[in-house]
Every structure is written in C-alpha cells, then in structure tokens.
C-alpha cells in the first residue's frame, strides 16, 4: 500500500511540511521516521509498523561467520618437481606438484608408511633343534616363509598363491599355524634383549590356535547363513533369557529381604553371588534399606565378608621389598607330598657358572664386555638374575660361533672339492671330506694332457694352499717319469 508521501512523489506534488519545523528538521524527521527499513520490504514495514519487536530481530544483519582466512592470501606458486622416494629400492624419480616453498630435501611424505614386517630366519642348527615337524618338511617350511615375506604376511594371498609341488593340500589355517608356531619357537629359544614382559608381549602377538580358528570360522559362516526364521527364533530366545535373568535376580533379592526381616539380620544367609551388573543395582537398594531400618544394623553383615578374606592378601609389593620377600609360583604338588626343602643359602653361592667345556671361552667373552663372573658387587635377586641371563647369552654366542666355524669349514671343503673337480674332470676321484690330507687325490697326474689349458687358467686363481700342495707333488713326480709338459707348466707357474 502506498503511503501518502509516495503518492505525492508519484504525482510530483510538493511535500507537506509540518507547521512547527524548519526546513532541516522536517527533512530529518522524515528521514528518520519514514525511512523504509533495510532488510525488509517496504510493504512489510508498512504492514507491521515501526515499533514491532520482531523488527529488531529482522533488522539485525545476519552476522555470518567470517570466511576463514586460510593464509592463502598471497599467491602460491606450484611447481612440478621430481622427488626421490625413500621407500623405493631402485632410484626411480617420479614427479609431483609441490608448492615452491616446500623443502626439497625432506623425505617423501609417504615413505614412512612402507612398513616391513620382521623377517624370521633360522640356522640349520636351530631348525634341527627346535623346529622339526612331522607334517612339514624343511623345504616346504622355507617355501612358506619365502612366500610370507614376499606377500607381506597377507594370508589370503599367500594361501591363494601357495603351490608346493609335492606337499599335501594346505588350508590357510595350516599355513598360519606353521608360521606362527615357528616364530614363537624362535623367540622362545633365542636370547632376548630386554625384559621378560616385552618378550611375552611379542609372544602373545604370535598366538594362533588352529582348532579354535577353524571352529570360529565355521561359526561365523553359519551365522551369516542363517535363514530369516532362524534369526527370528534366536532373537526371541535371547529376549526370553534376559527376561528370565531379570526375574531370577528380582526373586532372589526379594527372598533375601524377606528372610532377613523375618528371621533377623544374622540369619546366617550365605552371600548370594550375583554378577557385577546386579551388584551395582543392589548397592543403592542396600543403602535405601539402611536409611529405613535404623534399628537393624546393616554393618555386621557387611563386615563379615571382609573378614572372611584371608589376612595373607595384605602383602603387596611394598611389603615384599621391605622384607626382601620373593614369591615364586607355589609348586603344583600338594603340600602333603614331601617336597625337599632347599636349605638356607647365600645368594652369591648359588650363581650358576658355565659348563666346564666352554667355561674359559665364556669367561673370556664376559670379561670383554666388562662382567666378572666370579663375584657380583651386590648379589641381590635382580642382579643375580641379570648375571644369569648374561651368562646364558654368552654361552649361546659361543655355541653360535662354534656352529659358524663348522659351517665355514664345510664351505672350505666344498670349495676345494669343486676346484679339484674343475681340474681333474673326475668327480669320482675326489672321494670324501678328508682330502686336506689326501694328497693322492690331486688330479694333476691324471688330466693334464687333455685339460692343460683350462687347468692353467684355473690354477692361476688357485689359493696358495693348493699351489703348495701341487708343488710338493711335483717334487714327487719328478722322480717318476712323466711328460715334460706338466713339469714345464709347473715351472711356469712357479
């Protein structure tokens, strides 16, 4: 609806001025009073009128949140850069868009996610000692571990790609079982740096129970394959059980209260073993009862269970250390059987010393790492245990070195045999491992003529040991009538 002033302006009539006001005033007044408000339409204003309280709310400028300034006020220059990826084994450089201000020497952001699982390898000695299994040959176990490493211990992939030519059909649970049991055995039997707790935690991560897993998978499968009727039936049964439980608890509580009020507080009722959920509900109820029945003291009933707990449970860690008490697991045998009593002893007397055969080597090793085996400065329980484990570790190391030496020796032997075979062309002549001493086996007298050229070239790479041997043979052979060519060869070599 048009107001009067609007009509006048439309019709170009002069504005009506109020008689008392001067020229500026009316203008102001007009400006103030009749100015159409911002934010709402003119028509609405004329409908509502200027003094409506809702006007204020309407007039309020919507105070929207400022658009957050992401600091990208200035222009950012992006450039295409080739980057090196720490996780790659080849040195392929790929490129990506990166802000020009980005540090070019920093590692590739995602390289740290290239996590490799710890690979477990074992020596032959370890295998024969701990890892033998009737159903798994050594080769198949090695194949399994190779696959496991290649496929990142992702079992479904491993199971899919597993194709050992001569083995029986392996289910995924068999594979997992073998892998985890091998890992567990290795951890248990190798010396472990750090405390028992971290070791047991690691062991826990390798727990795998094959039977349980198979059963569990069966259950899950059957769960997924339920027909709708079965699902409904199960739900109905579940609700029934819950209801019965509720009723039972209620019933028990009511019964006990009743008996107590009738027979008195010390009616000798055994504590009713209720589960945790109900205990929480029970406590406020007991408190309520306290408030109500002030003459019947509730406390005797409550303290009775406390006293029934055996006093020995007061012992805690602080008590133990102040009294230097150490608790072992109580032996599984009942006290009735006569367990031999170990007499009192001094702790340092009971330190275990390494076995006689390798004692010297072990002690030498310990001295190298700064431990005297003979006496501890402070033979406390903890330190004695530490010393024992250090001694064990040292013993294991000596054993390992011994096995390593044996393997090295075997390698030497085999290498020599191979060299000899190349010379002589006659593998049958190189009979057995005692050939270090067996001079007659050197193939020189035999294959010289046919193979002289290759022999020469082979011999140039021979070890000094071997040349010496052949030199002694040459001294033998010069007495025997041989062709001149071998002797000249030998001389050339010398």
């Amino acid at each position: 609806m048009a107001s009067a002033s609007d009509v006048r302006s439309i019709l170009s009539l002069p504005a009506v001025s109020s008689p008392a006001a001067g020229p500026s005033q009316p203008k102001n007044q007009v400006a103030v009073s009749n100015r159409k408000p911002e934010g709402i339409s003119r028509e609405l204003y004329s409908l509502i009128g200027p003094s409506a309280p809702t006007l204020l709310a309407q007039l309020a400028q919507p105070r929207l949140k400022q658009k957050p300034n992401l600091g990208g006020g200035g222009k950012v220059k992006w450039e295409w850069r080739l980057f090196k990826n720490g996780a790659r084994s080849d040195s392929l450089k790929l490129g990506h868009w990166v802000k020009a201000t980005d540090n070019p020497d920093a590692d590739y952001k995602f390289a740290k996610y290239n996590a490799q699982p710890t690979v477990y390898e074992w020596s032959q000695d370890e295998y024969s000692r701990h890892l033998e299994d009737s159903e798994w040959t050594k080769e198949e176990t090695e194949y399994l571990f190779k696959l496991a490493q290649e496929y990142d211990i992702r079992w479904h992939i491993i199971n899919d790609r597993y194709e050992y030519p001569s083995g029986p059909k392996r289910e995924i649970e068999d594979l997992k079982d073998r892998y985890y049991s091998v890992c567990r055995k290795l951890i248990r039997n190798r010396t472990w740096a750090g405390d028992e707790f971290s070791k047991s935690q690691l062991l826990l991560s390798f727990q795998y129970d094959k039977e349980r897993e198979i059963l569990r998978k069966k259950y899950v499968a059957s769960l997924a394959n339920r027909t709708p009727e079965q699902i409904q039936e199960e739900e109905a049964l579940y609700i029934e059980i819950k209801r019965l439980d509720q009723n039972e608890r209620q019933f028990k509580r009511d019964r006990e209260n009743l008996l107590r009020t009738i027979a008195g507080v010390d009616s000798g009722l055994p504590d009713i073993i209720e589960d945790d959920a109900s205990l929480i509900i029970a406590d406020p109820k007991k408190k309520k009862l306290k408030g109500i029945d002030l003459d019947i003291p509730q406390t005797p009933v409550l303290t009775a269970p406390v006293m029934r707990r055996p006093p020995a449970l007061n012992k805690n860690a602080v008590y133990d250390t102040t009294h230097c008490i150490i608790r072992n697991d109580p032996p599984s045998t009942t006290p009735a059987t006569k367990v031999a009593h170990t007499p009192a002893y001094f702790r340092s007397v009971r330190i275990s010393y390494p076995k006689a055969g390798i004692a010297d080597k072990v002690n030498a090793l310990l001295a190298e790492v700064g431990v005297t085996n003979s006496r501890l400065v402070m033979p406390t329980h903890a330190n004695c245990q530490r010393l024992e484990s250090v001694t064990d570790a040292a013993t294991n190391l000596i054993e390992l070195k011994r096995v390593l030496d044996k393997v090295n020796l075997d390698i030497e032997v085999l290498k020599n045999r191979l060299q000899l075979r190349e010379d002589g062309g006659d593998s049958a002549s190189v009979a057995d491992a005692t050939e270090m001493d067996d001079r007659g086996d050197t193939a020189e007298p035999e294959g010289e003529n046919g193979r002289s050229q290759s022999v020469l070239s082979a011999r140039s790479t021979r070890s000094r040991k071997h040349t010496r041997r052949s030199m002694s043979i040459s001294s033998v052979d010069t007495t025997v009538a041989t062709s001149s060519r071998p002797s000249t060869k030998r001389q050339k070599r010398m």
Partner: protein
Amino acid sequence: MANADRVRVRGLSIARPIVYGNSARLLTSKERENVPPEHTHRWTVALRSAASAPGSDIVGGADDLSYFLKRVSFKLHETYPNPVRNIDKPPFELSETGWGEFEVHIKLHFIPESGEKVITIYHHLKLHPWSLSGDTESIPPLEVAQKAGTVHSWQYEEIVFNDPYQNFLNILTNNPPTPIPRTNTSGRTIPFHIGNPASFESLKGGVPEFTSLLEKDEAERLDKAKKLIIAEQEKTRALLIAKEKELARLQKMLNG
C-alpha cells in the same frame, strides 16, 4: 596357627642383606710392645647387617641380627690358639692381631625356629693395602702401608630362606631390615671390589658403605653387557644363515 613351627609357607623366599668382611690397620710401635713380635696388624672380622648405623664408623651394623642368628663362629688359622671362635651374642665380630692373610671360615648358626642347618662362607682376611696391579705376592713397604690407613675388605651378601616355617617367617617379618641408603651418606665411600672399576677411587681412604646406587650401577653394567652380547649374536646368526645358504649352493653345484 597351631603348628606354626611345623608348617612351611610354600612358594616364598625371604632374604636378609648382610655384609661380612674385615678391616685391618697397622699396629703402632707402642702397641707392638704388647703383642707377639711377628704381629704387625690389628684386624677385626665381622658379620653385620648391610645398612650402616648413622654416625658410626664401622661398615654395616645398623640392625641387631640376633633375631635370626643364634651364633656366628669364626674359624681362624691353626696357628692361632683356639682357632674356632664362637660369638654367641651381637655384635658378631672378632678382633685379633696377626701378621698374615688367611681364609676365615665363617659359620652361621640360625635360631632353632628356623629349622635351618649351619651355613658357611669364606672370607680372605685382607691386611695389606689393595694394589691395582693385582700383584698378590709382594707385601707393600711400610710407608705405603701407613699411607693406606685402614684396609677394608667387605662383601655384600644376602641370606635366602626358602619356604620358611610360618613361625620363623613371622619372626623375620617382625624385624624388617633397615634399607641400605640410595647413595653414600656423608663420609662414606664405595667399597672396593674387583668387579667394579669405579671403586678404585675409594682406595684413597674412607669407611666404605654399600648403597643401592652400587646395585643399580651393576645392573646397568650387566644390562649393557647383555645388549652387546645379543647384538653380536644377531650378527653371528645372520652370518651363519648366509654361510649356510652358500654351503647349500655349493652342495648343489657339486652334485648338479
């Protein structure tokens, strides 16, 4: 509780920390007038509780051990008259004069409630000052000996009782040991021990004292040693596995 002295508490060991050893010093010329002419030193061999009494100048001895020790006997060298010296009441120590070092057999007799037999421990009586070079044969000259002052040789030890009788256990728990201090109290030094290289400092003098810092240091040394050994083990094992592979390869070459 009726048969408390016949029922054993299984699965439990209880220990008591002690120190045993001797201190020795040269006799002054005045003192030498009253003793047999060969004797050069006065020494005291003792078995005491590990913690030291505050303000005392002896090693250990804060607690009275007679609550579980009935008697301590020190068996000296045969050349001493009555070499078996029984000490039936605290303090369990013995002072004598002499000229030579020998092994003292210390026998601990426990109270009857413990049901324990006599246990023995041996201590080499130390008269002459410690020498770093480990030269045990030569006796240091007089000036060196005088400079060294009192020579101390002590060993910390723990007596462990396994599966004690309930009665004995109660007696023990009624007398908890004074805990050893964390670090050396003022005026005390670290006891000299061949196992602890840091203790060579203490040869300069001072009454020694056993602290839990010593224990911690030793624990650290042991742990460090163990880590070194295990690192070496890992290296050796990796080498072994590589060598075995090579062996297998060579075998194949030989047979193939």
